[in-house]
């Protein structure tokens, strides 16, 4: 875990993190409700439990920094700033979605907020993140690229090649492993030879930081330091951020493979009430937080309604965006 304690972030940053985290929290709840209620027919990878990690991480970045994430990406995408209505419409396969309905939940792209790629192939985002960072390095635009992935993804070849390349080229990239301790139904110890994922850092000579991702303060600090390093040309950082997912791999997963005590302990440490408590202890009022919650509830409700009300794309879209030139009918 990060050793040094820095000064706590400003109150405005703390509230910003709260806002991002609660948007994720409420959006996730709404997605689950709609799916269970049959209003949306999609495979859904809930980020419940990982909200604080993502909110603190994105709060430490600039709006135009790049993000690459995965199928379990709702938290990252919303925290990075994608307008909920655009995201929602994409999840619903509508033409008003971020990608005109072509990508869907696993393939969200939204360049205006720096969300460049969302991939459904485990590990594949990392090599692409290097490319974004390489462009920034050549361009000298001062942007940082963050790529998020899971613990189990750290066992695939692309992870290895990417951390190595980033380090030798000193790319401005932050590899954020959201370690929720499971890959699908397999616990880390069954799939990973390393005692701690962070033990992989020396194999690339890369700076490694292990952090409690559910601790907004620690996570924000780790991300800020990594971003500063990247912007200073000092190269990449590998952050292992410990967290937990409460709804298993995909919605409907009964988490049979998670020991009951482990699940219970995780729920006790739920970062959402934890962070609220931390803010209350820091002279933020209940009323202020409730107001934010209420505002977000409206945004989420509107986003969902917009998605349902929107039209599906025209079938002609099948011939568009395949190549630069439109394909003949």
């Amino acid at each position: 875990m990060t050793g040094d304690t820095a000064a706590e972030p400003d109150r405005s940053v703390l509230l910003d993190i709260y806002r991002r985290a609660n948007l994720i929290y409420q959006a996730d709840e709404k997605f689950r409700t709609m799916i269970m209620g049959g209003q949306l027919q999609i495979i859904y990878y809930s980020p419940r439990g990982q909200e604080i990690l993502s909110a603190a991480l994105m709060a430490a970045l600039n709006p135009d920094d790049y993000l690459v994430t995965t199928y379990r990406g709702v938290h990252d995408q919303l925290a990075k700033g994608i307008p909920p209505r655009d995201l929602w419409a994409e999840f619903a396969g509508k033409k008003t979605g971020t990608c005109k309905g072509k990508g869907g939940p696993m393939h969200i792209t939204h360049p205006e907020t720096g969300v460049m790629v969302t991939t459904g192939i485990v590990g594949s985002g990392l090599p692409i993140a290097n490319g974004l960072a390489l462009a920034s390095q050549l361009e000298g635009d001062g942007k940082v690229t963050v790529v998020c992935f899971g613990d189990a993804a750290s066992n695939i070849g692309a992870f290895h090649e990417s951390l190595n390349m980033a380090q030798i080229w000193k790319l401005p990239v932050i590899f954020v492993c959201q370690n929720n301790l499971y890959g699908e139904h397999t616990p880390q110890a069954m799939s990973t030879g390393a005692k701690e994922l962070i033990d992989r850092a020396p194999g690339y000579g890369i700076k490694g930081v292990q952090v409690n991702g559910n601790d907004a303060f620690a996570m924000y600090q780790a991300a800020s330091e990594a971003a500063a390093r990247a912007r200073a040309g000092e190269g990449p950082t590998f952050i292992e951020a410990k967290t937990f997912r409460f709804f298993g791999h995909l919605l409907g997963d009964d988490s049979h493979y998670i020991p009951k005590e482990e699940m219970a302990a995780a729920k006790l440490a739920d970062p959402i009430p934890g962070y609220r408590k931390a803010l209350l202890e820091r002279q933020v009022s209940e009323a202020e937080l409730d107001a934010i919650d209420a505002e977000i509830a409206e945004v989420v409700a509107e986003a969902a309604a917009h998605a349902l009300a929107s039209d599906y794309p025209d079938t002609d879209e099948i011939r568009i965006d395949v190549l630069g030139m439109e394909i003949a009918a």
Partner: protein
Amino acid sequence: MNAETPVKAKKINFAQAINLAMDEAMAADKRVILLGEDIADGQGGGVFTATKGLSTKYGVARVRSTPISEQAIVGAAVGAAIVGYRPVAEIMLMNFITVAMDQVVNHAAKLRFMSGGQTSVPLTIRTATGAGVGFGGQHSDMLEAWFAHVPGLKVVTASNPADAKGLLLACIQDDDPCIFIENTASYGVSGPAPEPGYVVPLGKATVAREGSDVTVIGYGAVIGHALAVAKEMEADGVSVEVIDLRTIAPYDEAAVLASVGKTKRAVVVHEAVRKFGVGAEISALIHEHLFDELKAPVQRVGSAYAPVPFSPALEKAYLYSRDDIAAAIHKTMGR
């Protein structure tokens, strides 16, 4: 089985059929082992439950949940195969095989030849795919044409549960590397259960329906659609023969040519993108052999030239359809 079991009515779905094939193979031969992500019962017996119960029955030494490391999975299968094991590697979805193509193409397919016949590679790769289930661009591709183009590989898929069982068992027993393709949308689809020990020989097509006017050639889920179209066409007085290839490579050229030699018309159908697909090979073959006898050029049906879209509206526009099959048949008849 007790006396009351209504044997004739017994049904089985694809997931169960595939499970049964591995179960029989493992019971018969201890060198049959399974490798794949989350395939052991502790991890749920496979995301499509195709391996359910097998680790409990045969142990986790033989039914191994792996890390997310497809190169290591296929590579381990290759290594074990060349010393006599018969590994069945599950690559959860076909698009994920793109990270392991080296092991499949440069090694599994070639080691028999490159070793001068010293090391055969009796492995099976099971993998699921197919559009129509809202999985989007990276989880739905039908890539069988790639593997069919690689000498040394066999490519197999089934149109019904009984065949799935019989073909998968044949793959496992076969001394060559086999790619066994399962249809994501079909795992829950049921059909008559096969007898124990049922094996479908590789390389042999079957006539799924006899007809005299036109031959529809396909495989996998296409066959159900082709049979439905054939039935409809009966009303129009068009007699459609349906050939189920079962083995896509090397395919049963004799069966294809025999049928088209009789009907003089042919339509090849697959879910994969039409361009440069399996249908091109079969069309070319038929023309090469039956040019003078054909009453019309062979028609091809396949999906649009596009990645698989997420939106259901577009996914439909992407996918081949029964209407496409019917239109292609009419085109061959219109002359």
